[in-house]
């Protein structure tokens, strides 16, 4: 996807974290969208493991594919669907928070560099 080496030097861990957060957001939205689909199995990315493998040089698509797991259902439902809306909503807002945090670190870095370039 992106140039991992470049990303690392400029934004540190947050460049990678941001990409991963946005992938995870898509996956959690998929779970929420399929809350009423029979036989749908909820999935989630193991964020810590995926970030670790991305930091060790794996590209983002491989890292997410390798660390995607089916969620263990809290309560099994009759139609084979394993989405628990509350769990998904909590995970979604936690993930959005993480995204915002990474984003503010990145924009802080961008600010610093911009000021250095302008010589303020």
């Amino acid at each position, binding site marked *: 996807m992106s140039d991992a080496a470049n990303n690392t030097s400029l934004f540190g861990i947050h460049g990678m974290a*941001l990409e991963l957060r*946005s*992938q995870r*957001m*898509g*996956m*959690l*939205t*998929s779970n*929420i*969208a*399929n*809350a*009423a*689909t*029979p*036989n*749908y199995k909820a*999935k989630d990315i193991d964020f810590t493991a995926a970030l670790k493998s991305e930091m060790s040089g794996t590209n983002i*698509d491989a890292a*997410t*594919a390798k660390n*995607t797991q089916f969620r263990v259902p809290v309560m099994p439902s009759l139609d084979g669907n394993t989405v628990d*809306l509350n769990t998904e*909503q909590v995970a*979604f*807002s936690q993930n*959005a928070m993480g*995204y*915002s945090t990474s*984003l503010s670190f*990145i*924009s802080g870095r*961008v600010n610093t560099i911009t000021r250095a370039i302008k010589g303020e």
Partner: protein
Amino acid sequence: MPTSGNLNIFDVAGRGMSAQMVRMNTAASNLANAGAVSSSEASTYRPLRAVFAQQLDAANGLSTVNVAGVVRTAATPLKEHNPNHPLADANGDVFTAPVDENAEMVEMLDSSRQYSNLVEALSTAKQLMLDTVRMK
């Protein structure tokens, strides 16, 4: 309308919303036809039900939901002997649509809750993306 190609988070939420909308429409039709009377068993209204199916985009692991079809349920109409009814058949029977109003109300509430969850997810995603683009 299952289209091929890459899904993004907006497609996922948007199509999920239209699927919930179909479900809400079927529940509304069922409610509107609750208590509808007919003179033969064959022509009596049967409740509609939307059938959801997952649509997976293997390329990025996202999956959205499609309405695979809207089916009529096989519930049997309620037969009632009422010779004075204007629609009564030769035996004096009328048939009432087998709609469970409570079940339909629950269906509608569930559907509207899931719809609003998707709206919430969509607006959060939108906000985060705008924040990223504007970088502030």
